[in-house]
């Protein structure tokens, strides 16, 4: 359900940008999505293919650049990529002092158009 309004947001921002530049066709859309933002790539592309029919973005490819979540240990300062399932235990010093940040980005970076 959640991917539908997300996809509508992507499509309307892309169309608006293309319109402002008088582009005739959108071929690619570049997105930056955090790994912890619970957005499923395939699901968004699926909705996009349906919503974009009859628009100048029909057939466009969505590119998902995934933003990593970073884990840092407060004790030994070890830094690594946080991947679900998350754990507060540091793989290096074994203390339960890991803090996770980032991985929440959620924006459209650019589109590629044919003039």
């Amino acid at each position: 359900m959640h991917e539908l309004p997300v996809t509508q947001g992507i499509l309307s921002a892309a169309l608006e940008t293309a319109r402002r530049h008088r582009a005739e066709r959108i071929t690619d859309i570049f997105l930056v999505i955090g790994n912890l933002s619970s957005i499923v790539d395939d699901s968004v592309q699926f909705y996009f293919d349906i919503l974009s029919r009859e628009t100048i973005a029909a057939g466009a490819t969505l590119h998902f650049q995934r933003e990593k979540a970073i884990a840092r240990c407060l004790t030994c300062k070890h830094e690594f990529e946080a991947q679900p399932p998350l754990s507060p235990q540091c793989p290096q010093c074994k203390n339960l002092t890991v803090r996770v940040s980032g991985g929440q980005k959620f924006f459209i970076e650019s589109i590629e158009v044919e003039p």
Partner: protein
Amino acid sequence: MTQLPVVKHILAANESLAEENRALLRRHGIFGLNIMASPGAGKTSLILATADRLPAGLRPGVIEGDLASSIDADKIAAKGIPVIQINTGGNCHLDAPMVGNALKHLPLAEIDLLFIENVGNLVCPANFALGSDMNVVVAGVPEGHDKPYKYPGMFAAAGAVVLNKADMIDVFEFDADYFRRGLEMVNPTANLFVLSCKTGTGVPEWVQWLTAQRG
């Protein structure tokens, strides 16, 4: 081929309407809370328990979000609290336009503290700004102590986390330290309140803190 920059939040339309809601609440001096939790964690119970203990002069109002029914709104209205029920149909979260419409039907001049009870769901609501001043995530002991690990996005977005049904901690062998560590991992600045809406334990501390946040 030409590359055009967009650099825009994917839910930009929602974000800008959330800003309008925020401005409206500010004009009326209302402190808004977005209450999120899974179904059955105790969102409505927390609102009722909090409203019961608010200091004189701090008047509550409620927006209730549910897929269907007015069960929760009826409970709130029975207490004489202004309430608007939003039925989202199939939508799994509230969004800024829905809240904006509900605000038109509330007596804003008679409200100081607005509880916006989101649809029971630990995933989507975290992504949709409503224009509130703070996110409050309610977790219920029977749901298990692993929720911050499984739904990091929701807990990372919280200003305060309320662990409800604390009277059931022993029954469900709930590991409160494990829960707390999970919360600290994704959100070290969130304030955690362990309470029971049923027995009232911990509720006064929560209300006192909440009242101070409003300033």
